[in-house]
């Protein structure tokens, strides 16, 4: 059923339909509405789950870790400083190979304090071994939760995932969202039935220590599982399309790519603005396209280099900065295209909630055409 609803509430409804058995979360702007809505559902018997209230994000994810190891489908949500506080637990969850799904309402990291959107928080956890999905709009944000559970609970994957959507820009925006019904979700998402779980009658420990003789291989196995999850994502996306019509089979998505000379690469809600800017540029005869990166981990190097093979130049929009280096997406795209003759230009854009408008996208295309990149775009020189 098509509903006009707030992004956070749409995500909460999708999570409810996924039937999580344990939810532990700590409210933090702009994630709060999601977990408030879920608490409300549990309190009013619309969702049969244990909702564990905790004193911090560290505890929230720790509670999820235990619950997931005990065999429960588990959910949390956070952002920014909250995710930073989960840092240690994130690595443990992934290393123990627990399929916890966590929504990230992307927000900048302090200091200076900012409650507004960029993608520094989840990008900073890129090395933690979680899958990372990025949504362009609220329809995609809700759908990605079903896909994330389906992929991550596959025994061949057995890894956690972030479903990232831009704080405020999506989380607090009303958009039409097609919600699934329970019977359909149950068809798509079978019960979570892990082979191994914490059980006093049959004791087992998770994440024991590995001596130098084994640790190296554990990291290899983790990396391999994450890379191999690409095939499972593809299958889950195709299956989703078969049942519900919306196609998530690819980890990247092209928009007017075929004859594009300049291709913009971006993640998240900025892709919507970019598509509108492209339409206007196309009307004036400029051959511009977009490649949207939906899955950042595992990084879709092969899909990317195939999709970008025909381009003359690539302009990468990063709502993050690896301080002292460059934007994370630009760095990885350069790596994926190493050896090809395509020029890659990186632009740091929209940090801490700075609006990105169609004119900004057009200006970036002009900069890329002039060969100017690897810059902070739109700096206010008068305050520097």
């Amino acid at each position, binding site marked *: 059923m098509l509903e006009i609803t707030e992004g956070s509430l749409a995500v909460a409804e999708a999570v409810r339909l996924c039937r999580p058995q344990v939810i532990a979360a700590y409210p933090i702007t702009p994630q709060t509405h999601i977990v408030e809505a879920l608490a409300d559902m549990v309190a009013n018997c619309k969702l049969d789950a244990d909702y564990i209230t905790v004193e911090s994000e560290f505890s929230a994810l720790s509670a999820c870790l235990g619950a997931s190891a005990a065999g429960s489908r588990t959910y949390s949500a956070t952002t920014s400083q909250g995710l930073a506080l989960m840092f240690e637990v994130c690595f443990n969850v992934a*290393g*123990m*190979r*627990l399929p916890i799904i966590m929504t990230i309402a992307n927000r900048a990291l302090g200091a200076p304090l900012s409650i507004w959107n960029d993608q520094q928080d989840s990008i900073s956890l890129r090395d933690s071994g979680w899958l990372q999905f990025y949504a362009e709009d609220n329809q995609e944000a809700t759908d990605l939760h079903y896909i994330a559970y389906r992929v991550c609970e596959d025994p061949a994957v*057995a890894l956690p995932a972030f479903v990232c959507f831009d704080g405020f820009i999506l989380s607090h925006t009303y958009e039409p969202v097609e919600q699934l019904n329970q019977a359909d979700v149950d068809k798509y998402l079978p019960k979570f039935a892990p082979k*191994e779980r914490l059980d006093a009658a049959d*004791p*087992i*420990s*998770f*994440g*024991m*220590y*590995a*001596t*130098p*003789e*084994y640790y190296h*291989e*554990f990291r290899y*196995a983790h990396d391999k599982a994450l890379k191999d999850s690409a095939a499972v994502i593809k299958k889950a996306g195709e299956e989703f399309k078969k049942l519900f019509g919306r196609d998530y089979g690819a980890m990247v998505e092209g928009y007017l790519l075929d004859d594009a000379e300049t291709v913009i690469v971006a993640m998240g809600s900025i892709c919507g603005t970019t598509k509108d800017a492209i339409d206007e540029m196309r009307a004036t005869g400029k051959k511009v396209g977009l490649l949207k990166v939906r899955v950042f981990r595992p990084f879709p190097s092969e899909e990317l280099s195939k999709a970008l093979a025909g381009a003359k130049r690539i302009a990468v929009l990063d709502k993050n900065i690896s301080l002292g280096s460059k934007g994370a997406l630009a760095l990885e795209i350069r790596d994926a295209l190493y050896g090809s003759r395509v020029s890659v230009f990186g632009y740091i854009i929209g940090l801490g909630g700075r609006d990105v408008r169609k004119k900004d996208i057009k200006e970036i295309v002009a900069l890329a055409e002039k060969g100017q990149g690897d810059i902070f775009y739109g700096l206010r020189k008068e305050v520097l």
Partner: protein
Amino acid sequence: MALAVGCRARPGKARDNKTGSWRVFKPSFDHEKCTQCGTCKTICPEGCISEDTDGKFIPDYQYCKGCGLCAEECPGEAITMKQEEK
């Protein structure tokens, strides 16, 4: 040993971790000097020193980390630590 997904383990699995590889100094037991008092066995934090049927105390070098507590505490100075070449 094949890797378990998520480094999951049944009870008793710690025995698989052969901590002897951590060792830099290896204790050498002089059974002539040994008075069989058993202090080394009591003090060993790894619990890897055992008494054989002749009453001799012998460390299990698969697990001995070379901490040297046994040599330090031995009243008969029957245990000496020697740097191990690997």
